[in-house]
């Protein structure tokens, strides 16, 4: 059984969620400057990836590669051969769609220590289909040697560089930018899921921005008498199936996953595989983009339109329980602040 770590709620947050401005910008600079082999690579989206100040302050650690992602991936592979650990910055989509072949041959197969920092994951961009990485986790999960990390709050963004750079091989990270809520006060520990609630009726598994949605839903669900077990994943691959299996077996009902991604190949599929591999006879409701492309729009609109928000999660839990709970939008808004800080106790399974 894997060691489990209690995740304390963020401090000082009784009054509301703390919003942190551009956490990546500071974290990257601090980390890169402490590690000579770390290099900053950019593909003409430098300010969009919050590394513009870094470029201006540390030009000899910054490599501008222009809008040419295929070259960037193989170039990074070459740098890796000389012992550098390049951090590649662009939107998540541009790290794997066009340069997929280069990613495979130059980075993944030879296990180069290339750190792929993918910004604007899923529907966090208004740029529409060409900008929305909605199948990146699925793609990366099927690449041998690849590690996948996803940030869900400011603390995880602040610790993503160190976490990524601890990987002995390539790693793809979904990074949040701009104004990011602080939900946790302990850094990412690679391979360790966060146990945010340890109820016994249903298991909710989230990652990235959907964790905040689950926190909004949780208080409302609990107020209706549903005992929720809630896990947040920041490490999607490799994955400790046994720890998850213990959680699945600790709930009477089934499992709901909610992801900023298509329901095929992401964390919903991950849960399905664990359950099927181990013959778990419980129901699984997978929420996310339902085998569809999205289009351009604001994040709240897209999350509502495509069923990635707290309301969709409540409906998923209702499906699992086979009954309506009578939870309204208002209940969810109120729940947001409190649920984030519900005390979590460690459980020795």
């Amino acid at each position, binding site marked *: 059984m894997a060691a489990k770590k209690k995740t304390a709620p963020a401090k000082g947050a009784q009054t509301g969620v703390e919003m942190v401005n551009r956490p990546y910008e500071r974290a990257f600079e601090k980390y890169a400057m402490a590690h000579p082999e770390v290099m900053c690579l950019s593909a*003409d989206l430098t300010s969009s990836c919050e590394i513009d100040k870094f470029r201006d302050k540390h030009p000899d650690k910054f490599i501008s590669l222009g809008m*040419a992602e295929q070259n960037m991936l193989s170039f990074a592979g070459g740098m890796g051969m000389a012992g550098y650990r390049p951090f590649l910055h662009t939107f998540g989509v541009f790290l794997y769609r066009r340069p997929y072949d280069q990613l495979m041959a130059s980075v993944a197969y030879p296990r180069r220590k290339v750190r792929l920092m993918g910004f604007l994951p899923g529907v966090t961009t208004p740029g529409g289909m060409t900008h929305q990485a909605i199948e990146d986790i699925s793609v990366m999960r099927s690449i041998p040697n690849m590690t996948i990390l996803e940030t869900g709050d400011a603390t995880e963004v602040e610790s993503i560089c160190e976490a990524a750079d601890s990987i002995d091989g390539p790693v793809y990270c979904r990074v949040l930018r701009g104004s990011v809520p602080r939900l946790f006060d302990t850094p990412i520990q690679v391979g360790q899921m966060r146990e945010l609630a340890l109820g016994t009726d249903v298991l909710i598994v989230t990652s990235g921005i959907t964790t905040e949605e689950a926190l909004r839903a949780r208080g409302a669900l609990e107020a209706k008498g549903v005992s929720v077990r809630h896990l947040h994943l920041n490490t999607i691959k490799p994955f400790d199936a046994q720890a998850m299996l213990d959680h699945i077996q600790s709930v009477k009902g089934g499992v709901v996953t909610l992801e900023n991604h298509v329901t095929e190949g992401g964390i919903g599929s991950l849960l399905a595989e664990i359950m099927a591999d181990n013959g778990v006879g419980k129901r699984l409701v997978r929420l996310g983009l339902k085998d569809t492309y999205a289009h351009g729009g604001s994040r709240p609109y897209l999350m509502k*339109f495509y069923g990635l928000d707290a309301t969709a999660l409540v409906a998923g839990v209702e499906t699992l329980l086979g009954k309506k709970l009578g939870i309204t939008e208002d209940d969810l808004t109120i729940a947001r602040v409190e649920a984030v800080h519900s005390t979590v106790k460690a459980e020795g399974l």
Partner: protein
Amino acid sequence: MSRRNAKTTEEIALGIRRRVFEHAMRNNGGYLSQACSAAEQLAWLYNEQLELGAPTLPMIPKPFGGVPSADNPTYHTGAGYNGPPRSDLDRLFIAPAHYALVAYATLIEVERMAPEGLEMFNKDGSSVEMIGAEHSPGMEVHNGTLGIGFSTAAGLAWARKRKKETGKTWVFMSDGEVQEGQTWEAIQCAAHHGIDNLYAIMDVNRQQCDGAMNTVMEVGDIKTKMENFGAVVVSIDGHKLDEMRDAAKEKHKGKPLIILANTSPFRGMPTLQRRFPRLHYVRFKSEQERAEMNHDIARALGVDPIDYAGAH
């Protein structure tokens, strides 16, 4: 070629700049420099060069109607704003999809879309998307991932040639696209297959997201490189319509024709120069800057300052 519009191409180019300016003022930013550099090119394409039929889609764009899928039988692209896909008519792709705002302003100026269309820009549930989607007015494919436009146009042009269609296939391109390897694969392919019903006009404004292209990734002499890859290339002043008209007449048997329109990213809005080299998306840094730009650019464009109080 005769003009289809009561307005001159110069007036349309000015109208494009005015509309994009007004939009950017109201929304506290926008793709202003692309209007500066590309206004003449798009005005010329739509008002003079392209043979297009009457629009087949409503002047006021319909809301987002879903993505292509077997469950969405009524799905259609936004190409109908350019008229029907008839064999004798031309087709146009806007390869850098972030020029959508400028392309929409052009559609309004040439009376293919109602001004209300621009009010829907980047609004939730709208088809008038910030990064032109294939369902957006005037678009026929997704080009938000840069560098794929010329390839698609080459394939369509090849197919149309084989089917003995007389219409031409045009692409509006950006110079950032020459950094992508695919652009070169596309030119080489079009030359190899003798695709000479294929035309491009590229907005060479020497800018990209990170700033001036020569500081981000030097691309060298685009004209010579393209010629070496097999295109016929004419380099012109992209703000001079006569040069554009002449360039389109250049003989290019067995080869695609590419017009390099050398432009200024602050043409018509000289105050924007203050923002150089960060021109890709101009967001005003302060209320004072917004007010100053409003005053200066309005004067340069010969309009009253925009009353943006109550907007964003």
